[in-house]
């Protein structure tokens, strides 16, 4: 295994819109910048496979990033903080210790999964997950897909899959028609969002779309064959090849917590400059609040500018951020999870997929910690990233403190001493800040 070290004025973790905007803004301000991402390519989830697609917004940011001095480190995931101001990232060829003066965390969000009978059958997956797989080479031509869960992501995913030849059998949105209507009316104040909504409506014309509807079971012999949905007072069995099912998003706050940043109500706490409770650490995008790509880009720019000492320039973006944050608040209200979903899991339903822990064996415990100790729930390789949000919703359990490593790793990479960094600061960032 190789090991190495790099040192940056500004290190950005996460290569989605927020991270790319932060890296571009910091690099264009003269800072030496590193941007590290677990995925093989930059773009994050929303821009997956789009950075090389000319004419897209993703490619414009990518071009600016490539034109800057930013060092792109893809296929590397941050696993630990071996010392103050150093993060250890692991790739297939070994690990690298990344030292920084300022850190920007832009490591996004994941889908919320709510366990129901049959959710562990292959081809039942996240809505964003199926889209990601199709973008990474899985053909869906002629495949029957049910898209379910909640949030605007469902519509975007359905439209994308339809364009790739899938037959969208049904879209199930758990929210009520009235809460969707309120959401629909409230976004009329944003011209960009209306455009997106109208174009989606066209892309989705003729597809069955139910509100007040959610999956209650999935079935199949080794592979998904059908899903049973609840709609009003009725249940219906729908044959399909894929169930793309996600219940909105959960921010990734584990790394921020590991570094010591304050996290409140599931979000990383930041000030106007996207600065966390640790002065050298900034955070942008979904970890600070689920708000979508436009807000992520603005927050990323503010964080990148502030991290490279350009506070004045970053202040010019504050009003735009305030406007976009209102959209985030509406999203949360419009797609709040309905209480009926708390009854989705049956006693025999697996909640923790890593350790195969059932709902029945969890219910007798009163906290996440007790359940972990007694049942191994959340102790597998995903470290509770999937079952944690589910138990939070079903049982009101709060997540525990985060311990290193934040992703499973090999012992050799965890135990190695921190590497001594090379000096590679740019002139612009030398001297007192």
């Amino acid at each position, binding site marked *: 295994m190789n090991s190495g070290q790099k040192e940056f004025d500004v290190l950005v973790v996460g290569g989605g819109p927020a991270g790319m905007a932060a890296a571009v803004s910091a690099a264009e301000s003269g800072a030496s910048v590193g941007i590290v991402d677990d*995925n*093989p390519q930059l773009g994050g989830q929303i821009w997956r496979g789009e950075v090389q697609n000319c004419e897209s917004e993703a490619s414009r940011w990518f071009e600016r990033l490539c034109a800057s001095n930013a060092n792109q480190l893809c296929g590397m995931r941050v696993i630990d903080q071996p010392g103050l101001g150093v993060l250890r990232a692991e790739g297939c060829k070994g690990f690298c210790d990344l030292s920084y003066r300022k850190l920007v965390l832009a490591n996004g969000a994941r889908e919320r999964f709510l366990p129901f009978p049959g959710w562990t059958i*292959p081809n039942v997956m*996240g809505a964003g997950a199926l889209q990601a797989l199709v973008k990474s*080479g899985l053909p869906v031509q002629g495949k029957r897909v049910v898209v379910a869960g909640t949030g605007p992501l469902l519509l975007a995913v359905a439209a994308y899959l339809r364009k790739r030849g899938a037959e969208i059998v049904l879209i199930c949105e758990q929210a009520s028609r009235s809460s969707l209507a309120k959401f629909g009316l409230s976004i009329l104040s944003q011209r960009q969002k209306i455009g997106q909504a109208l174009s989606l409506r066209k892309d989705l014309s003729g597809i069955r779309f139910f509100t007040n509807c959610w999956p209650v079971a999935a079935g199949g012999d080794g*592979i998904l064959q059908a899903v049973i949905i609840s709609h009003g007072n009725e249940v219906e069995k729908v044959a399909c090849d894929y169930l793309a099912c996600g219940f909105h998003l959960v921010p990734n706050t584990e790394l921020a917590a590991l570094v010591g940043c304050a996290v409140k109500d599931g979000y990383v706490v930041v000030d106007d400059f996207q600065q966390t409770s640790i002065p050298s650490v900034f955070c942008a995008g979904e970890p600070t609040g689920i708000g979508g790509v436009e807000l992520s880009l603005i927050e990323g720019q503010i964080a990148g500018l502030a991290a490279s000492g350009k506070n004045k320039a970053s202040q010019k973006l504050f009003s735009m951020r305030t406007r976009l944050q209102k959209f985030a608040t509406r999203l949360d209200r419009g797609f709040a999870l309905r209480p009926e979903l708390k009854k989705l899991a049956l006693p025999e339903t697996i909640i923790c*997929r890593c350790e195969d822990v059932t709902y029945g064996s969890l219910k007798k415990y009163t906290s996440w910690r007790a359940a972990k100790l007694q049942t191994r729930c959340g102790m597998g390789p995903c470290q509770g*990233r999937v079952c944690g949000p589910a138990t939070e919703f079903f049982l009101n359990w709060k997540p525990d403190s985060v311990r290193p490593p934040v992703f499973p790793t090999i012992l050799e990479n965890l135990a190695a001493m921190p590497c001594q960094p090379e000096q590679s600061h740019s002139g612009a960032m030398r001297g007192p800040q």
Partner: protein
Amino acid sequence: MPEQIAVTVNGRHVAVSSGTTVAAAVILAGAHCRTSISGEPRGPLCGMGICFECRVEIDGQRHQRSCQIVCSEGMQVSTSE
């Protein structure tokens, strides 16, 4: 046409276009990824490297997240079938 890449999944030849992830190749081969501790077949759940349900063995290295790794020519993938 994108360049074709040849990989094997459990000894079976699969041709995929360049840029395809191992997870997509495994589904194309009609295989599942891992077997859970109670014996259930599992496939990708999150598609973004978080859930670890898509773990497979790639060129002799176990526990690789197939959704985060792009296929390369001659790659040998084995799943727990």
